[in-house]
């Protein structure tokens, strides 16, 4: 694997340690443009740490990573222009209304002011936020908050979207909508990097990496993974694959 023009995300032996604890242990993978790429693993397997390294929030201890053509260790600020990020923990301003939150991030991304109204309207329509746009964000339900966070990460029309556990704590119907929406983004050429611990969701990804204790366990498309782990069971799903790997 080498970083090529098509590989918008590329990682080689990426490692992160916190003191004596190794959160991410020599992980390598690459993601091509327009792909929905999934990171699958239980809590504490190193998914969030990896995503945070790719977004420039954490500095890798060793290894090499490259996002949108820039080194994650030396040029994080250049990466930040072309990515959108939605954190696992809700991280918008509770004292502001959804409308004010969106406006704030448009300013931070230096989107020219004449485009603001259009972008905000579009984001609100896409994520069906119109009925709550003037309430205080901290009073919204979890589902609304997730949608708002997604809307805000798309405002500046990024090339690559990083979603850290976007559907945790959300009801199944909203989750279905959510994945439909991600499929729609990917068809329009956006690369989506998503982490989850729901096996059924991971089916929607083009390719997957399964993590355990900071190490890659297996990688490939969902059907490849099922095929190689449970070759004798035609009806097996990712859950079965996961169990058979773990045992």
């Amino acid at each position: 694997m080498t970083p090529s023009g098509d590989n918008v995300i590329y990682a080689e032996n990426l490692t992160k340690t916190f003191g004596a604890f190794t959160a991410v242990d020599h992980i390598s993978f690459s993601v091509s443009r327009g792909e929905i790429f999934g990171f699958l693993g239980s809590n504490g397997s190193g998914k969030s740490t990896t995503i945070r390294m790719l977004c420039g929030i954490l500095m890798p201890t060793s290894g090499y990573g490259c996002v949108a053509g820039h080194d994650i260790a030396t040029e994080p600020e250049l990466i930040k222009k072309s990515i959108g990020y939605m954190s696992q923990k809700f991280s918008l301003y509770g004292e502001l209304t959804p409308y004010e939150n969106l406006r704030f991030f448009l300013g931070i991304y230096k989107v020219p002011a004449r485009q603001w109204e259009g972008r905000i309207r579009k984001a609100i329509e896409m994520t069906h936020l119109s009925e709550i746009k003037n309430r205080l964000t901290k009073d919204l339900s979890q589902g609304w908050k997730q949608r708002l966070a997604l809307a805000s990460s798309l405002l500046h029309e990024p090339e690559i979207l990083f979603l850290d556990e976007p559907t945790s704590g959300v009801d199944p119907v909203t989750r279905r909508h959510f994945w439909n929406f991600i499929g729609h983004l990917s068809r329009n050429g956006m690369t989506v990097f998503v982490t989850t611990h729901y096996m059924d969701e991971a089916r929607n990804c083009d390719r997957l990496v399964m993590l355990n204790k900071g190490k890659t366990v297996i990688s490939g498309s969902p059907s490849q993974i099922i095929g190689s782990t449970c070759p004798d069971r035609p009806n097996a799903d990712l859950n079965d694959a996961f169990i058979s790997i773990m045992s």
Partner: protein
Amino acid sequence: MSWLRIRELIRKEFIQLFRDAKSRRVLIVAPIIQLLVFGYVVNYDISKISVALLDHSRTPESRELTTAFTGNGIFYIKEVFNQNQMEKLLLEGRTDLGIIVPPDYADTIRIGTTSEIQIIVDGTTSNMASIRVSYAMQVLERLNSMLLQEFYPLHLTYGKIDNRLRTWYNPNMDSRYYFVPGIVAFVVMLISLLLTSIAIIKEKEAGTMEQLIVTPLAPVEFITGKTIPYAIISLVQMIAITIFAIIWFRIPMNGSIALLFFATCIFLMSSLGLGLFISTVSLTQQQAMMSTFFFILPIFMLSGFVFPIANMPVIVQWIAYLNPLTHFLIILRGVFLRGAGISVFWPQITALIIIGFLLLSGSVWRFKKRLD
């Protein structure tokens, strides 16, 4: 630096600060209460000295001594009848001085010898005690020359020094004139420091910092966007309480308002810079507030606000000159009381600019766009 980003940061900060009714009230009410309380509390003017008088002599002569004290207007005399009573009053802190007139007082002075008047002073608050004692001694001194005139009606004008003392700058030595300008500075500093010291932590604790880190926002833009809102709030507070101080406490304002405003602006650079610096190096609000307190106490004590810098050991004086409040106080008091102009203050102004610049750039430098 992008003005667009900074503008939106400022707008956001103001919405956060003023949307909550409670914090709105804190921002407006806190400085006024502090100014009022401080203004009345900080007062070293002696208007009353309470005296427990034990008169063993009980003669017209000793009553003359009592009148000499009461005639002064400052001394409030309470007569006691034995030593125990006086000791009890002193122990309980209910009298400042005890005066004992000996039984043979009248006889002694009449035969032309010296009678000893005992003055017992509660030395607990030593500075006030020294002043009270010397007031009492002045009364005795005056009585002395009166008695001499009375006993020796002969020509007794000896060559003596006439003490023509004049007080400059604050002729009535009104504590308020001296302290209120300092209080204005301290109150504004306290609030701006506390607000900014948690300005960045708040984002860390709420998780919003993570979202900001993944944006292309530059540290200097972030720090500027955090400084300006608090600078505006502090300036408005400063103007409001200065006006309040001038009207309410009738503080004379002899100097230039423009100079005062300019000095406030450069002083706020240090105050906000220190707050932001604390905020960038702290992890929790508790930590930030403890750090603020760690700084605010020496800043208050080593500024010449209450304790004269000239009285400090030389090394501590050096530290006092690193303190932005020291310089600001010199300017404030100079402008208010003496009406001094900018030419006198260039060392202070230079010092404030350097300290403020260092602290602000320190916070830009220490602010890491990473979470580890």
